[in-house]
C-alpha cells in the first residue's frame, strides 16, 4: 500500500495489462459477471433500464 500517485497509476496500468492478457474465455466470463452486476444495479432504477437494457435507438431499418 502506498500513497505515491505515480506508483498507484503504474499499479493500475499493470493490473489492466494483466487483465488484458487473460485467456479470452476467462475475460468473457468476467464480462458475464460484470453484466450480472450491472443488471442488479440497474434494477434499482425506474424505466427500461430496470430490464438491464441500454438506452439507444434502433439502427436497423426494415
Amino acid at each position, binding site marked *: 500500500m502506498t500513497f505515491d500517485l505515480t506508483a498507484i497509476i503504474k499499479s493500475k496500468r499493470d493490473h*489492466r495489462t494483466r487483465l488484458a492478457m487473460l485467456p479470452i*474465455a476467462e475475460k468473457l466470463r468476467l464480462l458475464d459477471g460484470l453484466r450480472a452486476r450491472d443488471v442488479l444495479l440497474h434494477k434499482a432504477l425506474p424505466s427500461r433500464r430496470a*430490464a*438491464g437494457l441500454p438506452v439507444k435507438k434502433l439502427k436497423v431499418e426494415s
Partner: protein
Amino acid sequence: MDIRQVFTIVNQMQLDGTISDYAIGEAVGATFYLEPVATLDVDIFITFRAEPGQLLLNPQPIFDYLTARGCTMQGEYVVIAGWPVQFLPPPSPLVEEALGHAVTVDVEGTPARVFTAEYLAAIALQTGRAKDKARLLQFVEEGRLDPALLQKILGSHQLDGAWQKFQRQFLDNAP
C-alpha cells in the same frame, strides 16, 4: 448468463444461411484484445442474405429464427442467454471492410468472429464518442495495434485528420 451461447447460436444462424457473415464489435469485440469492460449489450455486425428483388435490408428473418429457438425480443434487442444482442448492418464502408477482414477466434471450442484490433480502433475513431476515444486510447496504451496496418486503414477511409486530432488530444505530451 453465458456470452459464449450467443456465439454458438449466431454461428448456427450463419450455418443455416440466415446471415452471410458476422463480426462482434464495440465493447465485447474489444474484450478479445483488451481488459474486459462492463457493457450492457452485444453488438453484432452482419451481412444479410440478399433476397432477389429486395431493396431494403430486412432483419425479420433473424428475429424469426431466434424467437423460434426460444430467444425473446426486448425492444430492439434479441435476448440470447441473458444478453441483449443487437444485429446491425455495416453503417459505413469502413465497417463493411472490417467485416471482410474479421478473424475467427476459438473460445474454448466455440468459434467467434471478431473484428481485428486495427479495425476496432479505426471504427472507434470514426464513431468518435467519448467511450470510443477511451477504447482507442486503451488499444494504443496496451500496444495492441500494428501501426502500419492502422495507418493504411485510416488512410483508406479519410481518417488521417481525425487520427492527428486524437493524437494531439490524448497522445502528445506537449501542451
